[in-house]
């Protein structure tokens, strides 16, 4: 984790995400007196914006998506692998990459929610704290962050497979939009493989939308497993 937190790209990505959320924040809606729960509603508008949807496959893969290419091409991996076991290296990298995709939006989203609370809440009419809405927003943010983690893992898979920066950084973006194209242009009922739906969770995902969490767990596990296998094969070649 220390290694990850020292990574400049992680903080740059977080700042980009934060700037995007601020850009999408509906400041123009601030008109006194504000109704109860306005800070969450405005925060939801920012989180649900097109800019977040567009930025997700970019900001999540930037921090460590191509770490394997970087380490292997610089020769660092050859030295590093003598000090650490294969399994330890794979476990470490899988976790680092997943968290590096998860964190930028999670941190930026958390900071925006806090900022929204500090700025907007004092202007609201006094009433009960809308805990249900806050919880809903947190779940939305969690879904965005989990999608970021999966995308980072996909970048890692492409990095290990192609050993190329272009592919590692570019293909997750292309895959993400391929799914969007398929849903929007050809298979309009195919909502389960539609990235925007993973974030919004508006369609039928079972009781209490539990299906979406099962989907995230399954997709994450599959991506981690595939990435782990690819990394293991690459390490054996050294």
């Amino acid at each position, binding site marked *: 984790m220390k290694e990850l937190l020292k990574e400049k790209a992680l903080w740059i990505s977080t700042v980009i995400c934060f700037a995007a959320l601020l850009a999408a924040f509906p400041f123009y809606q601030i008109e006194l007196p504000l109704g109860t729960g306005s800070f969450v509603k405005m925060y939801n508008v920012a989180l649900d914006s097109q800019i977040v949807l567009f930025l997700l496959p970019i900001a999540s893969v930037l921090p460590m998506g191509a770490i394997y290419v970087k380490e292997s091409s610089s020769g660092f991996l050859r030295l590093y692998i003598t000090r650490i076991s294969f399994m330890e290296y794979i476990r470490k990298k899988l976790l680092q990459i997943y968290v590096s995709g998860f964190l930028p939006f999670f941190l930026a989203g958390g900071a925006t929610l806090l900022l929204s609370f500090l700025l907007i809440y004092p202007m609201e009419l006094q009433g009960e704290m809308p805990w249900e809405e806050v919880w809903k927003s947190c779940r939305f943010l969690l879904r965005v962050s989990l999608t970021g983690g999966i995308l980072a893992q996909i970048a890692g898979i492409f990095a290990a497979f192609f050993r190329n920066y272009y*592919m590692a950084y*570019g293909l997750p973006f*292309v895959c993400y939009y391929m799914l*969007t*194209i398929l849903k929007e*242009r050809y298979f309009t009922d195919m909502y389960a493989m539609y990235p925007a739906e993973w974030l919004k969770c508006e369609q039928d995902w079972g009781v209490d939308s539990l299906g979406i969490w099962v989907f995230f767990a399954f997709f994450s596990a599959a991506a981690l497993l595939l990435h782990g296998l690819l990394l293991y094969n690459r390490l054996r070649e050294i």
Partner: protein
Amino acid sequence: MKVSDTKLLFVKQTASSVRWNFLGFFKNPRIILTFLFALVLCFFLSDRALMVADYYDTPMQALEPFIWTFGDATSILLSSLLLILLLIDLPKLTPFTPYMLLRTRKVCWLLAQFFYIFLVTAGYILYMMSVTSLLCMQKTYAGNIWSKTAALFAYSSMGDKFSVPSTVKVMESTTPVECSLQMVLLLICYALTLSFLMLYFQMRIGKKAGIAAGLCYSLFGFLLDPETLAKILHKEEYEMFQIRRITGWVSPLNHATYGMHDFGYDALPTVEQSCALFLLLLLVMSLFSFRMLKRYNFNSFTGEM
């Protein structure tokens, strides 16, 4: 050696150099990714035309999405930026180049670069056209006749509202196929000038200069967009015809924009005049490149200059 044999050898050497340039082209991650990005770009750009067709539930001719999408200067600009990524490695230098130059003439090598650029550019533009049509295929038909959606755009203010270039004059004077062919021609000419400019600067100064030249060329076109220029110069609506006329002649990007041509309303260039201007520009660029090649220092054959 006979004259005809020399000519044949010249052609053969050029052809083999072109083939060499294309070696590994389809396996190059940068090339693959550029074409994939182009697909995503076409998806974004074709959205507004499809939105109207969806809303009114009217069909479109297969090439109309392409005509509407790439009849706009901003779309051409965005697609040309991807072309810069595609041609970033010009001139093609590999460890094999010195051996090739020993066995061929420099002129053949440079001509091969020209053909390579032409083929890549033309392929890229045709790819954009096909992809745009394929992305909208659920709403399109093949017949060479303007659609009801086109009429909706042309006969109402909806075209302006959605920034979709569709005019009655165009619909009356051409067919969709004819119109799209003219657009492809203009786009190829624009993309070729951009590519040749990059080639010249890459040979003269270096790779970064080539990219900078490409970006400056695009930026020049963007700044000379009538709307942008009017905002910068604080011009009123009634003064727009002057701005349109000047930028229509001066800006290469506007020469590539189909809607910025003479349809009997303004004293703008015709499609033929624009093509002639582009060809003139290409000729000048080719001459400069030939001159540059005589002094070109092949100091690195690692593939990087």
